[in-house]
C-alpha cells in the first residue's frame, strides 16, 4: 500500500519534471538551486573555521583589509599585487650568532603588496634573540625596517618562540621609509602619516617618491636576520598581503568574502528551506482539514486564517529578536508560525476542487477515516501546488532575515549574506567604493531568490495551466 503510493508519488514527480524540462527559466532556476545546495553542503570543507571564527580578528589578520577580487586586474589599467604566501625562505644561512633568511619577491605589477608579514618559529637557549627585517631594493639599496626582540616561552630545553612581524605595519617603519625616500624628493615632502608606505618602498627612487610614486619593478629581496646566541630556527613563513585578494576580495576587516559567501549560501538555504518546509506542512494540514470538513470547521478555520493574515511579520521578528535573543532558529520559528497563511488559502481552494473528485467520495464510502482520506488521497495531489508555493516562500524568508541583520538584530553566531551586508553598511563600504563587499553578498540573495522564484513559477505554470502564457 505505502509502496504503491510512493510509486505514484514518484511517477507524478516525473510527469511534472518531464514538462518542467521545457521551461527555460525554470531550468536555470533549478540549476542555480542545485549549485547552491552543493556549495552549501561543501561549506565546512571549502571554508573551514569561517563560521566559528568570523568574529575572531586573529583568524583574519593576515589577510589584507578591503582588497577587491583578483580578477579586477583584468578590468583595470593598473595591475595590483596579488596575495602571496611563501612557506620557505629562498635562502637560509647561518653564521655564528646570526641566521639569515632571504625571501625573493618579484614585483611586476603597478601596485606593491599592502604589507609583508613574517611568522618565525624557533627556540633559543637563554639569551633572547632579535629579529631584524630589511628590504633590499633591485638597485641594491637596503632599508632596514622592523626589529623585534623575541620573547619565548620556557620549555624543557630552553625557550620556544613563535613570533609574528609585520614589515610595514607600525609608525616606526613608516618613519623609516619616509626617511629613506625623503632624500630623493626635491620639493616639499608630505608628512609620514600621509604616505602609502609600501608604494613608496617599492617606488622608483626619484623625485615624487613620497607622493607621485612610480613603481620600480624587479626582484626585491627581503632579508630577515635572527640574531642571538644558541638560537635555532625551525620554521618561517612570509605573507605578501595582496592589493587584490581571492575570488571575491576581502571586507574591511580582512574577512575572505568568498568563504563567508559559501556559508551565506548554507545558512540562506537552511533558513529558506526550513521555513518553506515548515510552512508547507502547516498549510497542508490546515488547508486540507479546512477543505475536507467544510461547514463550520471551514468557516472557523478561515476566520482564523484571516486573523493570522493580518499579523505583520517584521514587528514580531524585531521584538522577539530584541527581547529574546537573535538566534536564527527563533527567526525560522517565527516565520514558520506566520507564513503558512497564504499557502493554506491556495491549498484550501484546491482542496475544495479535489474533494469533488469521485474517489474521495469512494474512499468515504469504503469507510476510511477523515484523516486517512486527507493523507491518502488529497495530500499527494496537492504536493506540486505546495511545492510551487514553498519555492516562492524561500526568497521572502531569506530577504526578511537578512533585513534583520541590517537593523542590528542578526544572529551573531552565524555568517550569512545579511551579516556581511550589515557589516558593509556599518563600515561604510558604499561610500568607500568597496563595491565587491556590497555587491557579492547581495548577489547571493538575488541568485538564490531568483532560482526559487523561477522554479516555483515554472511548477505553477505546469500544474496550473491557466497561468500559461498565450
Amino acid at each position, binding site marked *: 500500500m505505502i509502496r504503491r503510493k510512493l510509486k505514484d508519488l514518484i511517477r507524478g514527480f516525473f510527469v511534472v519534471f518531464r514538462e518542467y524540462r521545457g521551461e527555460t527559466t525554470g531550468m536555470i532556476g533549478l540549476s542555480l538551486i542545485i549549485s547552491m545546495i552543493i556549495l552549501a553542503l561543501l561549506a565546512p570543507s571549502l571554508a573551514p573555521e569561517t563560521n566559528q571564527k568570523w568574529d575572531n580578528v586573529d583568524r583574519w589578520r593576515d589577510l589584507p583589509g578591503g582588497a577587491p577580487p583578483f580578477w579586477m586586474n583584468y578590468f583595470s589599467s593598473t595591475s595590483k599585487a596579488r596575495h602571496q604566501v611563501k612557506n620557505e625562505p629562498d635562502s637560509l644561512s647561518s653564521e655564528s650568532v646570526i641566521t639569515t633568511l632571504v625571501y625573493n619577491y618579484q614585483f611586476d605589477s603597478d601596485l606593491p603588496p599592502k604589507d609583508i608579514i613574517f611568522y618565525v618559529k624557533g627556540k633559543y637557549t637563554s639569551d633572547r634573540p632579535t629579529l631584524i627585517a630589511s628590504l633590499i631594493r633591485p638597485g641594491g639599496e637596503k632599508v632596514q625596517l622592523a626589529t623585534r626582540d623575541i620573547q619565548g616561552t620556557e620549555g624543557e630545553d630552553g625557550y620556544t618562540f613563535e613570533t609574528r612581524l609585520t614589515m610595514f605595519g607600525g609608525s616606526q617603519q613608516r618613519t623609516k621609509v619616509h626617511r629613506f625616500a625623503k632624500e630623493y624628493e626635491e620639493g616639499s615632502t608630505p608628512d609620514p602619516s600621509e604616505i602609502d608606505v609600501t608604494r613608496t618602498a617599492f617606488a622608483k627612487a626619484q623625485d615624487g617618491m613620497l607622493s607621485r610614486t612610480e613603481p620600480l619593478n624587479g626582484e626585491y629581496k627581503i632579508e630577515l636576520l635572527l640574531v642571538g646566541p644558541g638560537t635555532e630556527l625551525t620554521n618561517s613563513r612570509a605573507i605578501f598581503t595582496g592589493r587584490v585578494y581571492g575570488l571575491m576580495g576581502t571586507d574591511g576587516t580582512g574577512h575572505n568574502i568568498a568563504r563567508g559567501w559559501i556559508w551565506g549560501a548554507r545558512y540562506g538555504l537552511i533558513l529558506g528551506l526550513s521555513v518553506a518546509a515548515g510552512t508547507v506542512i502547516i498549510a497542508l494540514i490546515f488547508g486540507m482539514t479546512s477543505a475536507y470538513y467544510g461547514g463550520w470547521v471551514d468557516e472557523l478555520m478561515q476566520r482564523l486564517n484571516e486573523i493570522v493574515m493580518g499579523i*505583520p511579520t517584521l514587528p514580531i521578528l524585531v521584538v522577539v529578536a530584541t527581547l529574546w535573543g537573535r538566534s536564527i532558529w527563533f527567526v525560522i520559528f517565527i516565520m514558520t508560525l506566520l507564513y503558512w497563511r497564504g499557502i493554506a488559502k491556495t491549498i484550501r481552494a484546491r482542496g475544495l476542487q479535489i474533494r469533488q473528485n469521485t474517489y474521495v467520495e469512494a474512499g468515504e464510502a469504503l469507510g476510511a477515516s477523515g484523516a486517512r482520506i486527507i493523507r491518502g488521497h488529497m495530500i499527494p495531489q496537492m504536493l506540486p501546488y505546495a511545492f510551487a508555493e514553498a519555492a516562492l516562500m524561500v526568497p521572502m524568508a531569506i530577504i526578511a532575515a537578512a533585513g534583520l541583520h541590517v537593523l542590528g538584530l542578526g544572529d551573531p553566531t552565524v555568517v550569512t549574506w545579511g551579516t556581511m551586508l550589515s557589516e558593509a553598511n556599518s563600515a561604510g563600504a558604499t561610500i568607500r567604493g568597496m563595491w565587491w563587499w556590497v555587491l557579492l553578498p547581495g548577489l547571493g540573495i538575488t541568485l538564490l531568490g531568483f532560482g526559487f522564484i523561477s522554479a516555483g513559477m515554472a511548477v505553477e505554470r505546469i500544474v496550473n495551466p491557466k497561468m500559461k502564457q498565450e
Partner: protein
Amino acid sequence: MPARVKYLVFRTFQALITLGIVVLILSSLFNSMSEEQLQTRIRQTVTARVRNSTELQQLSDEELKEWRENEIGKLRDRWGLDQPVWQRIFMDAWDRMKLDFGQSYMMTAPGGSRQVMDIILSRLPRTILLFTTAAVIYVLLGLIVGLKAAQVAGGKLDRFLSIFGMTSSSMPMWWLGMLAILIFAYQLGWFPSTALPLPQTTGLDYYLGVLYRLALPLGTIVFNIFGARAWVTRNIVTDVLQDDYIMAARAKGIPERKVIYGHTLRTAAPPVVTSALLSLLMSIGGAMITEVIFNWPGIGLLTRVAILQGDIPVVMGVMFITSAIYIFGYLVADLLYGLLDPRVEVGTSQSMR
C-alpha cells in the same frame, strides 16, 4: 447595502481582534522580558537618589536601608511589578491600544519629550513622505508598464518584464539602496549618500534640499517594486483581455482606447488595486531598512537606533504603530475590493488571492 454595512462592521471587528492579538503577543513578549530590566532600573534609580541627596547620606545605615526598601517598594508598585504577570500584560496591552506607549529609556523627541509617542510622531511624517511618494510612483508606473506589456502579450516588453519582475523581486530593497549609493553617490556623485543632516534652509530651498536627499531612497523603492507590480498588473490584465466581453466590446466598434482604459482596466481594477495595496504593506519592512541604509530619519532609522541603544519602549512603540498600519491597511484593501467590484456584494477576502 445592509449586507455591505454588516460586512464592514464584521471586518473592522476582525481587524481589531487581530490588532488585539498582535498587541497581546508584543506585550507578553515585552513583559516576560522586562521584569528583570525593571528591577535593575529601579535599583539604579534609588541608588542615584541616595548619591545625589546629602540628606539621605546623613542617615544611619539601618535607616538608609529601610528607606531604600521603602522606596524600591514604591517604585515597584508604580511600575506594576507587584501585580501578576498576566495582569501586567493586559494593562500594558490596554495602554498600547490607547496609544499610550510610556516613556523612553533615553531617546528624546526634538522638543525634549521622552514620551515614546512624541518621538514616533516626530519621525512618522518623514517615513510617510518617502513611502507614499514611492508608492504613488510605483503603482502608476507598474500600471502603465503592465498595461503596455499585456497589450502585446509575448512581445519584447512582456518577456523583459517577466525576467525583470522576477529578478527585482528577489533583490532585497535595502541592498539595491546600497548599490544605488555606490553608483549614484560614490561613483557619479549625483546625489548625497546620506540624508542627514537635513537642510537647514527654509522655503523652496528646503523642499529642494529634501527632494535631493529623497531621490535615491525613492528611486530604490520604486525600482525594487514596480517590476513585480507591473508583472502582476500584466497578468491580471492579460486574463481580462482574454475574456469574451472584451471581444464583444471590440465588435461593437468601440474605440480601442476605450476598450483598454474603459472595459479592461475597470474590470481589472479590483484585483489590481487590492494587490497594489497589499504589496505596499508587504514592503513596509523593506522600506524601513532602506531608511537605515540612507540615514533617512524616519521610523525605520529610529528603530535601528533604538535597537542599538537598547531603548526597548521605543522599539515596542514603533512596532505597535507598524502593526496597526499593516492591519488597517489590510482591512482597507479588503473593503476596497468589494467597493470596486459590483459582483462582490460584501467585499470578500475569499476572492482575493
